[in-house]
């Protein structure tokens, strides 16, 4: 723990008494006023944060973890308020503070790094302006030159090596990872005693995520800043925090030493979360239908029921090739001002085959070309070069009619279940639409098919008359899957289909996909950036980097014996990779 002989932190600030808590939260309650009455988002939460310590709050969306964090600096959304309890910052209760008083707590005492790097910087001001503003407001430096020097310093500390040169650039000229560094720089700019980091890396690629978290960790240690990490990712929390708080429906269900909790969870909810978190140690999920499944078995047991098939590879080889892609290329021309343009090779000569009834995972970071490849396979965009054969039909020479028929055999599920369903149409109408487009059946038979599909994805049939906004994220993704299955396709492209979901829901959807694959003999092309998920769903993996497939092979082989440094880097970046989870 903290070395008591050190009297000052690297920033020169005298160390706070490590035995006195920096922040004490006592019976905190937060209420949101909504059209349908009050919602109690946080119900009696208590915890302490000591100087220099790293605490993580873990939970799924809606657990109240972010609300708790924003309540500490009283930045709740307009309809929310602290309805009970105390928040003591250095011994003083801030719940009664005015906005003016809060301004002196925010930034200087408690810094905040928000979740989404895309929307948290003001697009009309330069990055330097926004950092300088934070420094000036907290009186860390004064005078134009000092402020500028300090701004450059914090940005460099946050990992922007060329900060000096990029100070006057605007946020849109930075990548997501770079913007997140800017936000970390802003959060640490005023030397706060506590830094709240609300899902600071969930919008970023794993490799970038690792770099940023490493940086955050060493910085907070160097400056002796306490860190409150809000995350849905158990592995990440365990790896970074010494203390873990697990929240569920506005309450703390378990808290304590993080490794202790992960290895010996006490509360059933924590056990569930740990079981559902896909990790490198997981094995391929297989259909649970063959095993004796009783009613009410939760995800955790289903995963345990999954048996590893020893002869998987032989089965794969024997199955006919369903999708075959040869030397696929897609080149876009990017405008470079005036009449100049330069080519961007989004997909640069990739080849792969997927056998019937198996899953190929296409993995890579953003910009690696994996989603473009999916769009090409779906025929949503014409390839620049190369051949795509799906179920014996070559897409290049196909007539409009043949393409239309091919679409019937090939369906897609997208990442964002909130954006991929038309909010104006009922669930029934959404699922029936592909049937209508392809002229399958009449009104009555389509209605029956919709009910059948809802049952297939384990949703109550009454949902047919409801609208997307009445459903949860997981339910919506089930609807999207039902829609994809409506036409009894042979191939389903899953474009980051579980990336937006909480771990528990994710585990359920992955199980559903495995069941459907076994039942209907589906072939999946699974596009994802999440290698932990790949481990549990895919039979084979193809790793993409800059439009090329750098490594491909059976999942187990790649995970156990990656040949390419890039693949190894992706594997190493998975949070909590080295931690053994208990149950």
């Amino acid at each position, binding site marked *: 723990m903290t070395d008591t002989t050190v009297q000052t932190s690297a920033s020169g600030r005298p160390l706070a008494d490590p035995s006195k808590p920096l922040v004490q939260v006592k019976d905190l309650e937060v209420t949101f006023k909504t059209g349908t009455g009050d919602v109690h988002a946080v119900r009696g939460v208590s915890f302490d944060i000591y100087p220099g310590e790293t605490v993580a709050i873990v939970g799924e969306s809606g657990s109240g973890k972010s609300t708790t964090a924003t309540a500490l600096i009283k930045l709740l959304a307009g309809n929310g308020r602290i309805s009970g309890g105390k928040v003591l910052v250095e011994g003083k209760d801030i719940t009664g503070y005015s906005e003016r008083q809060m*301004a002196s707590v925010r930034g200087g005492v408690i810094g*905040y790094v928000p979740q989404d790097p895309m929307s948290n910087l*003001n*697009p*009309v001001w330069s990055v330097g302006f926004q950092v300088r503003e*934070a420094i000036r407001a907290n009186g860390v430096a004064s005078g134009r030159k000092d402020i500028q020097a300090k701004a450059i310093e914090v940005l460099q500390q946050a990992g922007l090596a060329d900060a000096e040169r990029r100070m006057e650039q605007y946020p849109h000229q930075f990548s997501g990872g770079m913007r997140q560094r800017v936000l970390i720089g802003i959060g640490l700019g005023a030397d706060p005693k506590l830094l709240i980091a609300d899902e600071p890396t969930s919008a970023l690629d794993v490799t970038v995520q690792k770099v940023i978290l490493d940086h955050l960790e060493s910085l907070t240690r160097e400056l002796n800043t306490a860190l409150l990490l809000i995350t849905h990712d158990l592995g990440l929390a365990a790896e970074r925090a010494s203390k873990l708080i697990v929240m569920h429906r506005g309450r703390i269900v378990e808290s304590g030493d993080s490794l202790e909790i992960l290895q010996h969870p006490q509360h059933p909810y924590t056990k569930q979360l740990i079981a559902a978190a896909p990790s490198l140690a997981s094995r391929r999920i297989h259909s649970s239908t063959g095993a004796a499944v009783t009613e009410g078995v939760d995800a955790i047991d289903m995963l345990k029921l999954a048996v590893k098939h020893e002869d998987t590879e032989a089965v794969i080889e024997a199955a006919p090739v369903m999708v075959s892609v040869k030397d696929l290329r897609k080149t876009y021309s990017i405008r470079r001002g005036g009449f100049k343009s330069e080519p961007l090779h989004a997909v640069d000569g990739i080849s792969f085959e997927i056998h019937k009834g198996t899953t190929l995972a296409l993995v890579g970071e953003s910009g690696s070309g994996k989603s473009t490849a999916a769009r090409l396979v779906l025929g949503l965009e014409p390839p620049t070069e190369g051949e795509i054969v799906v179920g014996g039909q070559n897409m290049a020479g196909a007539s409009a009619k043949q393409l239309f028929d091919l679409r019937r055999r090939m369906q897609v599920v997208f990442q964002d279940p909130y954006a991929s369903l038309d909010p104006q149409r009922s669930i029934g109408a959404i699922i029936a639409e592909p049937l209508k487009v392809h002229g399958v059946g009449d009104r009555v038979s389509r209605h029956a098919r919709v009910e059948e599909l809802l049952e297939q994805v384990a949703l109550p049939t009454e949902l047919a008359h409801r609208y997307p906004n009445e459903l949860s994220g997981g339910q919506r993704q089930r609807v999207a899957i039902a829609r994809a299955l409506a036409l009894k396709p042979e191939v389903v492209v899953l474009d980051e289909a579980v990336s937006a979901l909480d771990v528990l829901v994710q585990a359920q959807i992955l199980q559903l996909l495995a069941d459907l694959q076994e039942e209907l003999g589906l072939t999946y092309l699974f596009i994802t950036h999440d290698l932990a998920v790949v481990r549990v769903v895919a039979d084979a993996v193809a790793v993409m980097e800059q439009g090329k497939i750098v490594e491909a092979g059976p999942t187990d082989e790649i995970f156990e014996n990656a040949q390419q440094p890039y693949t190894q880097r992706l594997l190493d970046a998975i949070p909590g990779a080295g931690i053994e989870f208990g149950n």
Partner: protein
Amino acid sequence: MLMYVVRRLLQAIPVFLGTTFLIYFMVFSMPGDPIIALFGDKTPNPAVLAAIREQYNLDEPFIVQYFLYLQNLVTGNLGVTFSGQEVVDVLSRAFPVTLKLVAMAVVIEFILAVVIGLISGLRKGGIIDNANLVTALVLSSVPPFVALFVAQYFIGIKLGWAPVTVGANATWGSMLLPAIVIALTIYVTGMRLMRGSVIEAQSADYVRTAAAKGLTARRIIPVHVARNSLIPVVTNTAASFGALIAGTTVTEGIFNIPGVGKVLYDAILRGENATVVSFVTILTILYVIVNILVDLLYAVLDPRIRYV
């Protein structure tokens, strides 16, 4: 940037040709013979008629007349009015007057839209907001000419606070009343845009981040809320600038302002093709330039927009 301006100006050429042709054609097809109308009730001597027709090229077929006109236009010769004045002279007297009027109206409109929209947006749902929305609804449903007459009658005649008519010597002060009235009839759109953007900006993530830095409302509201909300308001105001210049006929008629609208109106009544077409041509060019300026201004306000 320069490439963009050049391209936009090149695009203006077909617009210019199209509008002049259309206007020329429409004025040409108006009923009545302007030359005969010049003589009033008298029956003119056919030889005199023919001479005048030849002087104005009215004896040529339509398309020839148009090209002769274009040829003159390009060389800077806009022709003469029936009363013998150079159209260029008439234009150079009328345009500054209208520009003054419109500039005043636009500045007042912008200030009203931004200030009222900001206050209203910050106090969403409050008494001030509701009072403002009702006022805006009333003001925007009054036809401009009614508002102008009412203002002229009460403020100009009854109270005597402002000149009733402007006349030949159009000073800034004498045109203040019509400018305010115009602004009041058009500020509502901009105000609503501002109000909407302010409400949206207040719940924006970057505004929360600004608060989390420890900034006070005194800094957050102007720098992060108002500044970002200005973008649509500026565009709206700048666009109305072009429309107003072309649309001042009613205002200038009521307040007897010797601007573009009034000259154009008189010229149409007299069937002076050259004057009408020249005025409309200048208006078109001005409109195109204003629009280019609006687009460039947009890039200044929003750094994400870069024209290449």
